């Protein structure tokens, strides 16, 4: 079985994995990183979105072996020193979550969106989050949260870990 080395939320792991093991299952079933959920089997929902070497990736569409030598940040590793990431805080403030199942992926995708467009319009946010589905919120408050997160983060370099 292939052996991989992967850093997840700042901790280095060495794991033997079946070649077919999905990154999301490595995270959830092996490393106990259950903050990242699975919502589909076709790469459509975005619930499983994590940062892979600084860019958002759907961890259900990546094999664990492909993450060899990579740096992974999940929702669990986003806050720093007990402080929430500004985007997490913005989601809470704007009531941008109900059941919260889509939230880890949505927050990750939102942070990635701001890397390319630090001050996105409503339209840009809606287009940019197209790959992340939410069944609860109707997206209005998610859009507001991303706008707020962008304002909070403006000036800062976009933090992904």
């Amino acid at each position, binding site marked *: 079985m292939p052996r991989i080395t992967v850093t997840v939320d700042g901790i280095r792991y060495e794991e033997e994995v*079946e070649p*077919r*093991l999905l990154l999301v*299952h490595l995270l*959830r*079933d092996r490393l*106990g*990183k*259950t*903050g*990242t*959920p*699975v*919502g*589909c*089997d*076709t790469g*459509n*929902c975005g*619930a499983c979105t994590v940062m892979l070497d600084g860019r958002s990736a759907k961890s259900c569409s990546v094999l664990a072996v492909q993450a060899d030598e990579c740096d992974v940040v*999940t*929702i*669990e590793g*986003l*806050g720093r020193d007990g402080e*929430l990431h500004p985007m*997490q805080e913005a*989601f*809470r*403030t704007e*009531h941008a*979550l*109900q*059941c*919260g*199942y*889509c*939230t*880890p992926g949505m*927050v990750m995708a939102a942070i990635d969106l701001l890397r390319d467009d630090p001050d996105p319009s*409503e339209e840009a*946010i*809606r*287009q940019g*989050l*197209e*790959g*992340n*589905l*939410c*069944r*609860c*919120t*109707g*997206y*209005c*408050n*998610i*859009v507001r949260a991303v706008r707020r997160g962008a304002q909070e983060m403006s000036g800062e370099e976009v933090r992904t870990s």
Partner: protein
Amino acid sequence: MTEQLDAGLVARQIAESGRLGAPDGGHEVGRARRRKEDARLITGRTTWTDNIQLPGMLYVAFLRSPMAHARITRVDVSAARAQPGVVAAYSGRDVAGEQGSLPCAWPVSEDVVIPDHPPMAVDEVRYVGEAVACVVATDRYRAADALESIEVDYEPLEAVLDMTEALAEGGPKVHETGNQAFTWKFSGGDIEAAFRDAPVVIDRTYVQQRLIPTAMEPRAVVATTDGGAFTLYSATQIPHVLRVMLALTTGIPEHRLRVIAPDVGGGFGSKLQVTAEEVLCLLLTRRLGKPVKWTESRSEGNMTVHHGRDQIQRISVAADRDGRIRGVRVDLLADMGAYLMLVTPGIPILGAFMYNGIYKMDAYDFTCTGVFTTKMPTDAYRGAGRPEATFAIERAVDELAHELNLDPIEVRRRNWITHQEFPYTTIAGLTYDSGNYEAATDRALALFGYDKLRAEQADRRDRRDPVQLGIGVSTYTEMCGLAPSRVLGSLSYGAGGWEHATVRMLPTGKVEVVTGTSPHGQGHETAWSQIVADALGVPFDDVSVLHGDTAIAPRGMDTYGSRSLVVGGVAVLRACEKVRDKARNLAAHLLEAAPGDIEFAAGEFRVRGTSEGRTIQELALAAFAAHDLPEGFEPRLDADATFDPENFSFPHGTHLCAVEVDTETGAVRIRSYVAVDDVGSVVNPLIVEGQVHGGIAQGIAQALFEEAVYDTEGNLLTTTMADYLIPSAADLPEFVTDRTETPATSNPLGVKGVGEAGTIASTPAVVNAIVDALRPYGVRDVAMPCTPERIWRALGGDGAAAGWAGPTEPEGGAR
């Protein structure tokens, strides 16, 4: 049309609701509190069922029928048993003696047929996706691998897909008893008289397409046993109902069965079910003595989570020339799918009392036939029966307006119950306790800019603009807050509609609240804390809310039907009142005063006219210490309460939708969407707004995007999220939402329930808007979902080149 907002009226209503406490008065109820739940949800410290890992846990996978209808002639699981990591493999026949039959708790009529429904099929499969065998293995990949080694021989039978054909004589049968599941009739007033000589009759048939609820968290089940007692974790909305039903189904004694709903990622009715997988996981842990887990894949879920809607509605409206509605007649075919699940046959019946909507009329007649087909069973999906009813009446009233060349708002005004007429007993026999349709409508018209949009519409019509503007109206009400137990009894439902709560003052003055509701995104921990904070005068942060575990919250009826606040929230309030009464007695004793002389305010009990007092926290400690208690006073400051509502609650509102339809491509763009809802008094406006947003999105999704499609063989074609299109952020507009507040008079909080309102209201608003845009082309209906292709075809298949029939010409139907 008036665009003048009756500000005075709205202000009066808001002031009236002030009995709950105003946000500025230091009160919690009415405040936009940020949610307590969010701390764990935004940091990934959640406990979804699939997160649960127990020592020695095994993983279950199900082999599912690829045929819509077939006799099973052979199942051989022996090769699967030989696969690496496989612990066990069973066919339906292997567990036939102990799997029982999945329950239906709502035998709606005398003639209802409830077929045997084995969790794993034994002799016959009746829909694609029905479980026929299972594998238990040491990890999820191996369990899935081993399914491929199971051999099943099927003898194909004819699929039954179309409801009308299913009811015809001599066709293939889903069950030996035939394809009719039940008939149900209901009427009020003299319907013949209402239709006889009616100057106008609108007669339409609408199709409520089949939907897949699609909660973002797929279902998951973990079952474990210590040999005597069983624990089942499930992504369910109904841990309490589930425990009772599983005890009855599996024979595991109720007191040895604990059901836990951990964090649950949405439900929308789809997790209001007793599923085959829950029953089978319990049986597997019993057989194997090891914990087992099953988590569905999305494609498995699309096939096998119960579906929603799927009705054919024939609605006739008889009216006078001035637009006054004389009567409404409804003939409904409701697709049950292959079996009757927990409340399958009750869903259309929940709509039966709503086809009269907010309107006064002389007569009403409703007939429903439940039909078996070889498809996944249908059951509750957000709104459950009421969205269908609201769609039909709101579409038909728009048709009536068009027929009479009246503005759709005007026809509604001529028929709706005016605010002076409440409480009002409708032709369907319900008593609407309160409401103000005028106020909500006036507010919505003002926010929408109705007259301006109508002017733009006229202009586009004059110019024959290829992009036409349509305006859709939906003035809805719904019955929710399920439900008075005696009413449920009269409708043959198998249980009551009460809710339970316990409130415990802890020695340190903190408060534990136990609720029988089972939230899965609705924010009960926050809202209940607000209610308790006000009722007991304790800080919001000093309250914690426990739920979703039958060992911790032993009594409850769970969460569905917009019932949690209206029934469960009131139970919490009642329990607080009892705690307050006890505390008052204790305070009187300690302060050597008569209980009648004790005043309570802001968490302190004082002797009237003095500064002598005890805080509720001091009293909690005094009760715990028990050194000096009144005669007969038990040493605790706890109480519980069970609340059974006297009536349903009736939220209402006016939704307005403007769409631009490109007549050359059929593309629809929602230009603006305004919703003014009246959900009574509000505990947390932030949560209410969120529920409205999400509800509107799901209703729009039915209008524009979603449909579960079976092919002619009965194969589900929309098994993945790539095929079944739930909307993304890019597919939806910003919604403008506002509220009027007419408190419910049927409960002490004045609340009405908000979980389903948006979904109920929005579908007809959108379709009315699309049809309104296309009226000049002679279009009078577009089937849902209104895809560009369907709109293009409705335009005659050549888009804007189709006949321009003129802007206001009626399409007939008058006599």
